[in-house]
């Protein structure tokens, strides 16, 4: 049932569904994840007053339905480019119920800076470490459980192109949206 999973007091969009916003640096596979989370009903529009494209779609996991918003690439809340400014504005104006921060292990030391900023802003965050397959090839091993412990938020490892870890992500999203105590999820 629509909205059945809405447990947090955040504002509800025109669709009446809780909002899940995907953020992260460019080229970390956000749009692949977006496609995997949403079905065929996706609308793409330019963010008001800009050329920057923002995709919205409807996601479903079990009994839970939610709106997924894909944002342009961003490195920091203090953006330089128009894309970054749009993403920041979107986080500010849309009052997301949940922010999914997507990053790759390759660039973790730089990308975690945005995670810290999102947490600073008081947003509810799930961290996704994507492209794990490529990271392993580079010899990088990420201790997702430890990262989750230190950050105090759920961390999910994925290889979205191969569809790996997407079920875990969906599970983590549902858990966060329903307000049940978030389990630590890792692969």
């Amino acid at each position, binding site marked *: 049932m629509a909205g059945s999973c809405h447990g947090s007091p955040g504002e509800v969009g025109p669709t009446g569904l809780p909002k899940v916003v995907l953020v992260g640096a460019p080229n970390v596979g956000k749009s692949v994840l977006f496609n995997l989370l949403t079905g065929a009903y*996706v609308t*793409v529009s330019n963010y008001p007053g800009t*050329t920057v494209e923002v995709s919205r779609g409807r996601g479903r996991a079990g009994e839970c339905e939610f709106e997924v918003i894909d944002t342009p690439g961003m490195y920091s*809340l203090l953006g330089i480019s128009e894309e970054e*400014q749009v993403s920041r504005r979107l986080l500010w104006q849309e009052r997301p119920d949940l922010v999914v921060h997507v990053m790759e292990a390759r660039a973790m030391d730089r990308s975690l800076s945005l995670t810290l900023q999102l947490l600073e802003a008081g947003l509810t965050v799930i961290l996704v470490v994507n492209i794990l397959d490529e990271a392993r*090839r580079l010899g*990088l091993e990420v201790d997702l459980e430890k990262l989750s412990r230190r950050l105090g938020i759920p961390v999910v490892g994925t290889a979205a192109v191969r569809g790996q870890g997407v079920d875990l992500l969906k599970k983590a999203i549902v858990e966060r949206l329903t307000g049940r105590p978030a389990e630590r999820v890792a692969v």
Partner: protein
Amino acid sequence: MSLQITYEAPLEEAVARICELLQGRYPFSKRAVALLLLQGDAEMQAEVAATEESKSYELVQEIVRQTQAGYQRPLNFVIAQWRQQATADLAADVVGQQAQSPGRSLADWLGWLTMWPVTGIPILAVVLYFGLYQFVGVFGAGTVVDFLEATLFAGYINPWVNSTVQIHVPWMVLQSLIAGDYGIITLGVRYAVAIILPIVGSFFLVFSVIEDSGYLPRLAMLVDWLFKRIGLNGRAVIPMALGFGCDTMATLVSRTLETRREKLIATLLLALAIPCSAQLGVILALLSGRPTAMALWAGFLLLVFLLVGYLTSRLLPGSRPSFYLELPPLRLPQWRNVLAKTLIRMQWYFIEVFPLFVLASVLLWAGQITGAFGVIISWLTPVVEWIGLPGETARVFLFGFFRRDYGAAGLYDMAGTLTGQQLVVAAATLTLFVPCIAQFSMMLKERGWKATLAIVVFIFPFAFVAGYVLNLALTWLGVAA
């Protein structure tokens, strides 16, 4: 509880003091708002100035000033660096570096080859040849257009529309609005669906593949050196490459460039020297049997592009643009993403540009009915003859004003009567000549009427003078195209 980092004492103190002053409700925590204010974020300043009483906002500004005074570096850097240290520590704790698997993957090798100028430039040529020439030019503008145009429209749709209109619409004037040589359906829709759709669609498909492969940032790095000479930076390669698809869309995208100066130069060059895919498709088809003519046309446009860019960058005041970009690894594009992007762009194209096609058809119809065309053509005829072309090409140039591709397509119809040299001169002049109506309106929207007027006033005479010079040069040199 989630992790919160603590900054050094003076910063924390400033944050605490600002948080106390903030009374409004914000979507972000007050701590984050305070930190963004310390970092001089303009949008946040406006947001807070609008929410808080002016007195407390002034106090906030005073705190920011005082805090900055205690540091040599700008606060945004101090804060970013502090956060970076925390991040590096965190990453070190959770990321382990094992021995790398030996050898490089194919993608790595290709990645290196695309960056090194000696191999990168030939690779660019290969990408352009197969992506642009073979796929967009030969397949999109050739095979698909031929099928839709000759088989579908000329064979079925146009005869049907013409006869239906003749039976059901009693007035000649209205008949010619819908059907006939300049009708909305027989010309406007036919051009849009049979010519533009396959060309633009195939271009957007190629562009999305290139975009998703991670090649564009490497290309940007490769051309940065050259682009600096024309007052742009490597990043401008994205709107410029997009311009070969649709100059209107590229003009829109040029706003992502950093400075006003760069935006202006990019807009001018897009309007002047970058042929859109519709025009490109027809011109490539027109010159396809004549390699010399095609080389002359392409070389001349490249020369104009660089020369005008260089001179403009010299004339326009402003600082040198800077180039900084992450180079992602080359990856195999995901077909689903590529298709989605292509469809989104085509959808945009049809919503934004298609209505203007219809408008152009109506204007052409009105021009024909009122006889205004005859007058304008009679003005244009001597100009056209001056650059060595037959008087009849004046009609082609007039059409080019309405849609770049109308003009090129008109030229296609008269190709048989022109010499190789005339073809080169006509194609080059037509490419340089004013942008189409859609691009013109986008320029007005993005750059304002002053800049647009200046650009158009420059381009109109420049196109013909350049055509004249080219004609003269070809005659002198005796190059047989």
